[in-house]
């Protein structure tokens, strides 16, 4: 090939050596929070998809969210309703969701009822009607709800081959017309193997729900999505006023910051404890504070958060039993003001009490809050009550999800303090019945001991992954200043970790205490 230059002389055109670019598949947003991440970025444009599942899983709602997220007057969506939910009822209920944008109806989103064609005619007529409407409106999104009823009604006496041919023609036509298609239907998992629609589909979104004791758990599985990497496995979904929300198994947390290469030590807000920890907790560590009821785990956690706030580090406290007001009031009694940082957006106290929470959405709430305020410190108070707040069906996933969240957050440099209740036995010295110590960098154990006719409290730093720490067992009290470590290591007793130590040193005269140990005044 030759071109002419300005002088009119023919010169050979230089060939460009770069190879032809491969196609870039645009990804459409789903409008379902969390789903784009699960899908690997969104829905491939011009794909032919199935949204399948049993009744009540949220299939139609998901289809609506996709439609409302993408439809515009220039690129409208065509929503064919068939014999499933009547259109009037569908509009009645769907408009309750916050994503429902009434202004899109009529111009950007058009509903066409196919019921009469399906009832009275055959597959060819259904195909003709769909193609007629698509050709007239030129939609970018096409939904058929419920496709199952189209097939069920029109396949009486139709061979499997004809059925496959119909679906193939439909898929080819809609893709050729540059429409991204969603066939919504009530299917049984056993049908995946034999039903031709699943073979032809580019994407298969499977919704399900199962009962666990008294709770219902909804799940989503991306069985397939051609051309991109989706997150495998079952993901929790919840239907609320915003429509469907999906919670990725991997939590899809993209941290704003990375854990710094040189981590500083953060104060726990208790000077003597900082010394025991070799200068404080390492930034980005996960610290477990274990102890029985009443040993001051919450007080210690509050001091940890308050120390961060004093140092300009925003914090999150996730609580599951006590209400936020009770929490801030008690902090007040220790002289720690949590209300002002709350008002300034430096502290959020998340009260996550409702039963039936899924572990993933609980984790998501925490992650959202961390992102929202740029938290550097997080308290989970406590793991026991967090587990209790979960629907029974999610409890078996608890450890796995907790692990994912801790890994995600600590990788972002957030320092986590989790409290856990352990029952003191007088024969052992357990840290947690969850066997979660593998995911904590540091462990502080609080416990009661019987000394000189008193039930006193001692603490010990069991483990610090990031460095050396004191091996001392130190007595502490809870005063109006919170947890205060008193007395240096006592060498007069053996067996403190059993709770019933044996006195090895000389017996000293005991002071008479007029009242109980000073404690925070309400």
């Amino acid at each position, binding site marked *: 090939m030759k071109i002419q230059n300005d002088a009119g002389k023919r010169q050979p055109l230089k060939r460009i050596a770069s190879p032809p670019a491969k196609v870039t598949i645009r990804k459409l947003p789903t409008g379902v929070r969390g789903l784009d991440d699960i899908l690997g970025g969104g829905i491939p444009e011009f794909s032919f998809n199935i949204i399948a599942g049993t009744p009540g899983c949220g299939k139609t709602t998901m289809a609506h969210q996709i439609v409302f997220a993408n439809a515009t007057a220039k690129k409208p969506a065509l929503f064919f309703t068939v014999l499933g939910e009547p259109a*009037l009822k569908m509009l009645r209920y769907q*408009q309750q969701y916050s994503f429902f944008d*009434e202004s899109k109806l*009529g111009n950007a989103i058009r509903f066409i*009822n*196919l019921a*009469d064609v399906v009832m009275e005619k055959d597959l060819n007529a259904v195909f003709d009607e769909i193609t007629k409407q698509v050709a007239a409106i030129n939609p970018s999104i096409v939904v058929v709800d419920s496709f199952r009823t189209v097939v069920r009604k029109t396949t009486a006496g139709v061979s499997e081959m004809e059925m496959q041919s119909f679906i193939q023609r439909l898929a080819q036509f809609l893709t050729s017309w540059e429409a991204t298609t969603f066939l919504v239907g009530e299917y049984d998992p056993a049908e995946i193997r034999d039903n031709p629609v699943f073979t032809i589909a580019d994407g298969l979104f499977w919704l399900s729900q199962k009962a666990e004791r008294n709770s219902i758990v909804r799940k989503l599985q991306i069985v397939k999505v051609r051309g991109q990497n989706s997150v495998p496995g079952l993901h929790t979904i919840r239907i609320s006023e915003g429509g469907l929300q999906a919670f990725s198994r991997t939590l899809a947390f993209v941290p704003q910051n990375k854990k710094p290469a040189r981590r500083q030590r953060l104060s726990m807000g208790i000077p003597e404890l900082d010394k025991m920890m070799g200068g404080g907790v390492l930034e980005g560590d996960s610290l477990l504070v274990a102890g029985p009821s009443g040993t001051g785990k919450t007080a210690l956690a509050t001091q940890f958060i308050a120390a961060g706030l004093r140092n300009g580090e925003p914090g999150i406290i996730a609580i599951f039993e006590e209400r936020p007001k009770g929490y801030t009031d008690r902090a007040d009694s220790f002289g720690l003001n949590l209300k002002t940082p709350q008002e300034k957006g430096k502290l959020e106290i998340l009260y996550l009490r409702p039963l039936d929470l899924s572990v993933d959405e609980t984790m998501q709430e925490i992650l959202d809050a961390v992102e929202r305020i740029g938290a550097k410190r997080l308290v989970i108070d406590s793991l026991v009550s967090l587990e209790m707040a979960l629907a029974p069906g999610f409890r078996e996933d608890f450890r796995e999800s907790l692990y994912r969240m801790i890994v995600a957050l600590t990788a972002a440099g957030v320092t986590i303090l989790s409290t856990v209740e352990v029952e003191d036995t007088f024969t052992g010295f357990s840290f947690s019945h969850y066997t979660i110590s593998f995911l904590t960098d540091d462990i502080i154990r609080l416990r009661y001991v019987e000394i000189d006719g008193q039930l006193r409290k001692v603490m010990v730093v069991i483990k610090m992954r990031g460095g050396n720490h004191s091996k001392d067992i130190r007595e502490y009290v809870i005063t109006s200043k919170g947890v205060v470590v008193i007395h240096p290591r006592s060498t007069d007793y053996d067996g403190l970790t059993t709770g019933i130590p044996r006195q090895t040193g000389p017996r000293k005269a005991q002071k008479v205490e007029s009242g109980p140990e000073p404690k925070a005044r309400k």
Partner: protein
Amino acid sequence: MRDFAERLIAYETKGNKSSGTKTAAVFLVGEKLRLHLTALMGNVGFRALFSRALALANAEVPWLHTVHVKADGSLGGLDELGAQVASEKIAEGSVVLFAQLLGLLVAFIGGSLTLRLVREMWPKIPLNDLDFGNGDKNENPK
């Protein structure tokens, strides 16, 4: 809802003087609604809704017993109506019937969405000042 229906009917009957064409024009509102709503909800859906509206209107307008909803959702028995009922009565009855139909739509999908659907058919009729009040389908403004 009567006000709503009256505006639609007034718009459709504008310029029709003779009683025969006026009867047809009065019910043209129903026909337009049928064609538009059938696309949304199918024949069966529209027929069910219109039949309910007719049943409710029957309680107020006895002569509407002579009218019925056909299988395709259109009204039957209109041809005989002109000879039996005065045109003013027909106009009045049609207001009641369509007020019921619009009221049902409002009850199911809300005033805002109903207005949107109606505006797609009658974009020139001013409807912004309509007051759906407490949702009573057939409230009498007087």
